[in-house]
């Protein structure tokens, strides 16, 4: 009797009735969030000044705006943006067969905020790339490259310019953006 009781009790202890309790509850927060509260670097600002040489003189190209400016940081895609539109009515224009030019100091303002590679992310790899690139700009110095842009000729056609212009961007602590300065680009007549 005692032996049987002992067996029953022993069997109760080794019974395979283990429950797998999930200790995790998940928040319903969507999107990326960061536990760091400080301001993150998000934007690059610069002015573009495409020009062409007429004789020995530098003359600046006048157009409505500059389109599809491809910006890369340390050779990683940062943004593809358009410049602000410009008003050229006050400028003294010197037309050529291809361009409207001016001797006056003329620049296109550009604001390039960070853009993810795809608007809609569908795979784990795309999310990983977004997370990797999104906060890669910690404090420090980086190479910024203006890989290409498009500018409208006098006849309305868009010409693609590939200046491969490289400059330096300094990312500082708790600062949202950096100004790269005026970037002059020579383009064909």
């Amino acid at each position, binding site marked *: *009797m005692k032996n*049987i009781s002992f*067996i*029953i009790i022993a*069997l*109760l202890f*080794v*019974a*395979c*009735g*283990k*429950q*797998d309790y*999930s*200790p*995790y509850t*998940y*928040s*319903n*927060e*969507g*999107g*990326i*969030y*960061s*536990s*760091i509260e400080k301001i993150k670097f998000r934007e690059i600002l610069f002015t573009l000044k495409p020009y062409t040489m007429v004789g020995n003189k530098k003359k600046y190209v006048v157009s409505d705006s500059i389109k599809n400016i491809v910006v890369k940081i340390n050779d990683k895609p940062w943004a593809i943006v358009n410049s602000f539109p410009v008003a050229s009515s006050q400028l003294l224009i010197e037309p050529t067969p291809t361009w409207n030019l001016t001797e006056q100091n003329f620049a296109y303002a550009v604001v390039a905020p960070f853009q993810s590679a795809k608007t809609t*992310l*569908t*795979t*784990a*790899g795309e*999310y*990983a*790339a977004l*997370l*990797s690139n*999104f*906060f890669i700009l910690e404090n420090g110095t980086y190479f910024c490259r203006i890989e290409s842009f498009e500018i409208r000729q006098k006849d309305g056609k868009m010409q693609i310019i590939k200046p491969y212009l490289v400059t330096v961007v300094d990312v500082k602590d708790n600062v949202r953006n950096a100004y790269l300065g005026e970037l002059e680009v020579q383009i064909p007549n």
Partner: protein
Amino acid sequence: MKKAIILPLFVVLLSCVSCVEDSYINLNNKIGLVKIENVSFDNISLTSELIPGETRIKTICEAESKFPKRSQVSFYMVKGTSKVYLKTRQNYILDYSKTLTITLSDTTEVYNP
């Protein structure tokens, strides 16, 4: 008389505590650049953290009546101090006493709920 009661009782108890067969989930992380945290399947916690290349095996010991289990996999993708909550688009199925292999890779389709 006592033996007539005890023996059947013993048999009943024995059948109640007999072990079910284990099922297994084999979880692989092949997503580059990031680690994944708090991975779960059908409210079963698979792992608290998995870095690229790591594998975890989870044993599930439940009655056959609770199978098959069909669920998406949910997890946090973490890089540094940033994270995003994701779910797989695919539903995975775990059958009783079988092994389910789940590989999360760069091409796994996911969404942020």
